[in-house]
């Protein structure tokens, strides 16, 4: 219904009064309509726009709802409805239509047709009558919207079928245009029309061809897609096992023991391997160990500050002693150690595949250090 009232607003109030609240505009529009104001459109257009509006409503419901509205158009035109009074709402229109249809139901669909015909001369009703053939069906149909919609969706067409409708329902629905022309005026006895069957066959053929063509295109397309998809998966699997690994080995030699004098924190392996090799005391024992350069708080890389003899993280200020034990900032546990051992040639070898955590008591493991 907003459609109709908006049209009224456009005609009358929008032009001269600009800064009214929406509520005021709507109220004014309604008042004007109700009073049959001089600037409002002719009264017949009201049901027309109602039907028009209903025809615009959403997909599945549209045809059935419009069908319900079609009888409403003449109904509104009859004196039974107070014409000058308040505009009937959709619910009222539909109720009226249903009552009327129900009253006419025993007399089959035939009486329903003249009613629609009476409305036909008006252009508005003619527009609505595009959906008219469905109208009589309303009579025997369930009354509430939900079941109407359900019926529409199910494609069920219950109820008696009028003469005019009989060929329509027999024919496929693809030809509403052919039916639309005779709908308005009295239907003369139809001459035999050979063309529809021909056309129908042609359409069937065309569609059949299309469906076969489309089907085969789709089949080809999807086959191609699945083949390329399979190839892509294979390629991806191959990609996961590259010929050359660019990352440094997890086991590497860092030099002889003599290169790590007491108290020294060797930082030259950080950039490539992410490890500090430290010669320092831990719990009174001098050890050489490899510390992982990952802060135990959030994983940033701390810096070794020689002057302050501590590792300091730039992200949240965690600090670690030379032995890797946390003492300031938010880090909850000591730095982790990598496995270290003396290899066959006497060089120290760090193994990054194993880590040792102090809080789990793993620093006692002889693999986590080399006695200096």
């Amino acid at each position: 219904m907003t459609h109709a009232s908006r049209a009224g607003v456009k005609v009358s109030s929008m032009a001269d009064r600009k800064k009214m609240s929406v509520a005021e505009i709507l109220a004014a529009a309604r008042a004007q309509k109700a009073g049959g104001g001089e600037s409002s459109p002719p009264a017949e257009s009201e049901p027309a726009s109602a039907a028009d509006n209903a025809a615009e409503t959403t997909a599945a419901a549209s045809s059935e709802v419009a069908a319900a509205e079609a009888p409403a158009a003449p109904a509104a035109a009859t004196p039974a409805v107070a014409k000058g009074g308040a505009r009937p709402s959709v619910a009222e229109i539909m109720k009226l239509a249903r009552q009327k249809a129900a009253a006419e139901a025993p007399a089959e669909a035939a009486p329903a047709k003249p009613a629609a015909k009476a409305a036909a001369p008006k252009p508005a009703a003619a527009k609505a009558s595009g959906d008219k053939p469905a109208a009589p069906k309303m009579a025997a149909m369930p009354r509430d919207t939900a079941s109407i919609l359900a019926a529409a969706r199910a494609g069920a067409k219950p109820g008696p079928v009028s003469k005019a409708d009989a060929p329509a329902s027999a024919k496929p629905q693809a030809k509403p245009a052919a039916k639309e022309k005779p709908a308005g005026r009295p239907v003369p006895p139809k001459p035999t029309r050979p063309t529809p069957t021909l056309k129908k066959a042609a359409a069937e053929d065309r569609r059949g061809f299309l469906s076969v063509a489309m089907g085969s295109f789709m089949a080809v397309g999807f086959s191609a897609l699945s083949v390329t998809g399979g190839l892509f998966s294979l390629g991806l699997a191959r990609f996961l096992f590259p010929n050359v690994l660019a990352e440094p080995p997890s086991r590497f030699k860092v030099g002889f023991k003599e290169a790590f004098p007491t108290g020294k924190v060797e930082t030259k392996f950080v950039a490539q391997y992410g490890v500090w090799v430290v010669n320092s005391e831990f719990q009174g024992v001098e050890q050489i160990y490899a510390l992982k350069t990952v802060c135990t708080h959030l994983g940033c890389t701390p810096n070794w500050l020689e002057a302050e003899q501590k590792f300091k993280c730039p992200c949240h200020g965690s600090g670690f002693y030379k032995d890797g034990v946390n003492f300031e900032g938010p880090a909850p546990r000591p730095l982790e150690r990598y496995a270290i051992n003396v290899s066959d040639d006497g060089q120290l070898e760090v193994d990054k595949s194993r880590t040792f955590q102090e809080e789990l008591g793993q620093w006692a493991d002889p693999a986590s250090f080399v006695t200096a």
Partner: protein
Amino acid sequence: MHSNELFLKDVAGFLGGYYAAIAIMNGIAALILWQRKHQPVWAVIWTTFACVMMVLGSLALSGSEATVPSLPESVRNLVNTLSGPVNYTVGTTVLLVGFFVYRKFFVQPMVAWSLFNVALLLMGLSMADQNFALIVMKADNVPIVGLVFLLAFFTWVATKQAVVNDERMLRGEPPIEKVNDEKVLVWPDLVYTELICMIAVTAFLLAWAILLPAPLEEPASSVKTPNPSKAPWYFLGLQEMLVYFDPWYAGVVLPSLVIFGLMALPYIDFNKKGNGYYTIAERKFAYLTFQFGFLELWITLIILGTFLRGPNWNFFGPFEYWSPYKVEVLNNVDLPQMFWIGLFDRPLPLAAADSPWYVQIGTILLREAPGLILVGAYLVLLPPLMAVTIFRRYYAKMGLIRYMVMANLMLLMLSLPLKMILRWTVNLKYIVSIPEISLNF
């Protein structure tokens, strides 16, 4: 000091323009006030101020150390020594509380304009300091400086409207929004405004991107962390929180609680007033809680993280050189260590490595008993205690479940400042510290 002269030569042009802009702004303000005729005194004051700004601008343009207007060395040193996380947090809190208590005074346009001018003048004087300018004029930080002023402005506007409404309602009049409830249409009024804003902002951003290029750095490396390493500005409050908490709590639990808490607000809030208009008097609790969480626990932390945290995440005064070698003693200990070692002078309970699992778990629980009891009491005992004391009225109105949700959200929000205070005062690291399963609180 040679470098300082070079710096002043560099910055002279900008400072000259800066002071000129302040002068023009005040000139326009004076002109408007003069034409309105009811505040001629202020018009004269702002004209005089504009003249002073012009003089300062011309002095700044000279670019020599003797003449460029700046804060005296002693003042800068004093500010540096006074600034620290504790003083900063306490200071901003006092400032915000002061603004709130005397809001009727601060919402007066002339007072706000004076404060704005003082802030701009202080900025100008400070920018003659190399260390200050280096941080504030960094391409990253320029928008944050702008945002600080923008936020102050919007807070001021909202407070002003609330104060006006509160006074009206005190006189028995409806709030101003209910009087002027004229509605406009979305199309065209709103959509046109939005379109124009969109175009203007796009043009502004284009100009900005050209004038202040993004500060790109070298390619990232997993073994090299920039020092200091900073989150995007909007996460700097979170980064500051992470200084005091374990990542799972400050990075996961607290932010999620913020989101869930905001989602729960409509269900917790039983106050039907303040719907569709600004007011403080009618919603004091809601207003204060929100402003505490937003301005105090988020915005001031962003400012702290942006401008005052330097290399190694140390705190630096606004005029201090960001030295990566600054030494700060920040040693801290966990509560179990305080309790067992400090109080009873005995080692932490430690199960032998080969003892069965239940002994191990029992020992950990014993070790963490003080912290667990404390946290449990905080979250379990405090809500009912508050229900019968300070929140008696709220409890009666809200019912058990809504009250418990509200109380726990509040307590968890307060856990942030509480933990910060504990860190500053007694060097407490974690109340519960179970590194064995990475659970620290």
